[in-house]
């Protein structure tokens, strides 16, 4: 694939660049959002969209920078959110003007709608002081991040080239496992968000059930990632799929460690370790710097895992073609990649967002 043939396939490189910039700004936003939850700073500023009566952009920077830490991170989260919003507008316009594919152009506007919804959820959480909305806001943010990551992938010049897909007997399995892992990863993130925002009135048995569900789902997720990298190895897939699949495996190896440390920094070491001096001497420091970093890293890595799994899924559907059962013939990779991948991206978006919409509707109905 030469640069010239890439240029012929792509109308403009700007949509990809803008999508990349938006994704790069969104991940820190996910981090800071997680820090807001870790520090329980969501209500550090009582009004919205203003900050203590000031326009968001006019709040005195000295007051912000040198003020209380919870106001610092909450207002910082808002500023970063505004920056992501502006970048999303630019990306949507860039896609509309610079991409030939109808569905991708519309996905730009979907992303813009999503960032508006996300901002509004954040605002409603503040104005209503409602923890359930904070949970939905915290779950929808990673979904938005994944959407942008997906747009980065589908706007890449190579995606739009006529380069054919690889085929082998195992490619179908790689595709299925990739999609399944993506959805499991998002389900796991959603359960984690529920755990972080668990109602204070919930019974201890409910808290325990949810925690065990989170741990069980983690085991299922890691197992699927192992199956995925094994399938990737057997299928002899190109580096475009193989590399993110291995990255996913690495992230899923780190994440349980972060999960255990999150538990320890919140609730201490298990009682059976009490015989050891390090366990008996361990004192939890509420909202300590190191503790907050690890707890937030666990949450942010969750978002990164979902996005990476999505990248593997999208690339698997673009760059791999399964053998059809009827004739044994293969799909024409480029044709299947261009159309089917767009359809799958849409389905993925719907699958990720509708449980949120359903649970929100139930809360409203309640």
């Amino acid at each position, binding site marked *: 694939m030469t640069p010239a043939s890439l240029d012929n396939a792509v109308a403009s490189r700007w949509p990809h660049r803008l999508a990349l910039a938006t994704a790069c700004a969104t991940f820190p936003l996910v981090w800071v959002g997680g820090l807001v939850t870790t520090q329980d700073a969501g*209500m550090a500023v009582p009004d919205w969209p203003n900050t203590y009566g000031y326009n968001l952009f006019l709040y005195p920077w000295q007051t912000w920078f040198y003020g209380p830490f919870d106001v610092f991170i909450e207002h910082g989260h808002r500023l970063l959110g505004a920056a992501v919003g502006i970048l999303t507008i630019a990306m949507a316009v860039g896609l509309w003007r610079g991409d030939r594919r109808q569905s991708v152009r519309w996905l730009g506007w979907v992303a813009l709608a999503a960032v508006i919804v996300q901002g509004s959820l954040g605002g409603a959480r503040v104005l209503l*002081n409602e923890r359930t909305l904070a*949970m939905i806001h915290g779950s929808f943010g990673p979904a938005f991040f994944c959407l942008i990551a997906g747009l980065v992938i589908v706007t890449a010049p190579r995606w739009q080239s006529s380069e054919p897909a690889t085929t082998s007997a195992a490619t179908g399995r790689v595709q299925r496992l990739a999609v*399944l892992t993506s959805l499991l990863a*998002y389900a796991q993130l*959603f359960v984690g968000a529920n755990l972080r925002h668990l109602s204070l009135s919930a019974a201890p048995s409910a808290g325990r059930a949810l925690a065990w569900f989170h741990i069980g789902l983690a085991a299922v997720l890691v197992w699927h990632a192992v199956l995925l990298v094994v399938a990737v190895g057997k299928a002899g897939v190109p580096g475009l799929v193989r590399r993110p699949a291995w990255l996913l495996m690495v992230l899923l190896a780190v994440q349980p460690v972060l999960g255990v440390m999150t538990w320890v920094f919140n609730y201490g070491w298990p009682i059976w370790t009490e015989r050891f*001096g390090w366990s008996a001497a361990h004192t939890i*420091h509420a909202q300590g710097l190191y503790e907050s970093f690890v707890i937030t890293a666990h949450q942010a890595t969750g978002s990164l895992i979902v996005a990476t799994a999505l990248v593997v899924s999208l690339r698997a559907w673009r760059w791999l073609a*399964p053998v059809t059962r009827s004739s044994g013939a293969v799909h024409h990779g480029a044709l299947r990649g261009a159309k089917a991948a767009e359809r799958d991206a849409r389905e993925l978006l719907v699958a990720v967002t509708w449980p*949120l919409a359903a649970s929100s509707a139930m809360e409203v109905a309640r």
Partner: protein
Amino acid sequence: MSNLHAPRNLFRALAFLACGAALVGCGQSDAARFRLNMDGRDPTFASYEVQADEAKTSEESKQFREDRKVAIANEKVRQQLVVDLLTAGFGTPDEPFAPSDLGLDIARLRRAAGPVASYQSGQQHGLYRKHCAHCHGISGDGAGPTALFLNPYPRDYRPGVFKFTSTGPGMKPTRADLERTIREGLAGTAMPSFATLPQFEVDALIEYVIYLSIRGETETLLNAAFEGEELEPIDLKADAAKQQEQATALAERLKSEAADRASLWTAAVDTIVVPNQEAIPPFLPAEGTAEWQASVERGRVLFRDSKTANCIKCHGLTALGDGGGEELFDDWNKAKPANTKPEIALWELPKQELRPRNLRLGIYRGGRRPADLYRRIHVGIKGTPMPAAGNVLTQPGQIWDIVNYVLSLPYEASGEAKPTQPSVAQAP
């Protein structure tokens, strides 16, 4: 083509899974209500149902079921009455209230209570829900959503008993005792250190913990009074004047019970145990000196003396916490049956065993200063089998000697559990 359809089915299956997860988590929004103290109570009277099933005749069975209906109806009336009385006397988690004779600072209570919110930069409200309620629960019953995972369980404030105090046996802690626990945390447990909180926030939290404790104790006393038929629910069939009279009497009773509880908190300061200033031996920095060695040896004798301190009963000869003997339980777990029948779950949290401290680790939850250890030995750890030894260790310096021995333990290998030396045992 079925191969291509498979992912769509996966999409749907996983979407259902995610929605299921949403249902688990979204099931309850933050209803800011105090939970009734139902410990040991079975509001469904399931035992009647069991008896009905086991009855020999159908008439007996019918009678048990009828009795159950009446009991459930009466229980509902009692519960509502307790809720009404407590709400009138103490307000709600969002708007706490306390009569002035309880000596509680309402402004502090309001800062600690309610949902987490800021109305002025750096001035946070809802501190209790931000820092404490996850474990200790909205009602201070030690049964927050995380409680089942924790060992030991979070403190249930309602019995009004707090483990680590500087006050005399059976007395409430001082505010300074609570502050020490809040600021320093409890090593090896889920109780964190809130060392970075500003003083006014710590003061607000202390005030709210005391409020929850007084409220909880009053509720327990009301329950006991109704249980023992010392108090009677308002007779709803009586005329309005009679009902009003009964309601006023009940409210007065609640007020006096609450005032009694509150007075114990006020009186606690007068019972602070001041460590004996006579015969203070040299401590660890003086390790190796003859005087220090003699103090440690005297402490070792007392530690093992079954007639006085008798520390080895639980902490063991080696002080590893391996005294053996019967299982130990604190007051919060003592009343719970060993195996609660699943169909009659009378307790939110199942029985939890207590382990004596391994003193060779050098970790002391009630504080590591010699004066802290002195008080631990003198007044014990309240609500636990760790007794107050102040009344048996009456000779000057005895408690200090045990403190010295305990402080020396982390530096002595457990294999060096030396036998008691007769010459030291006879020393005064």
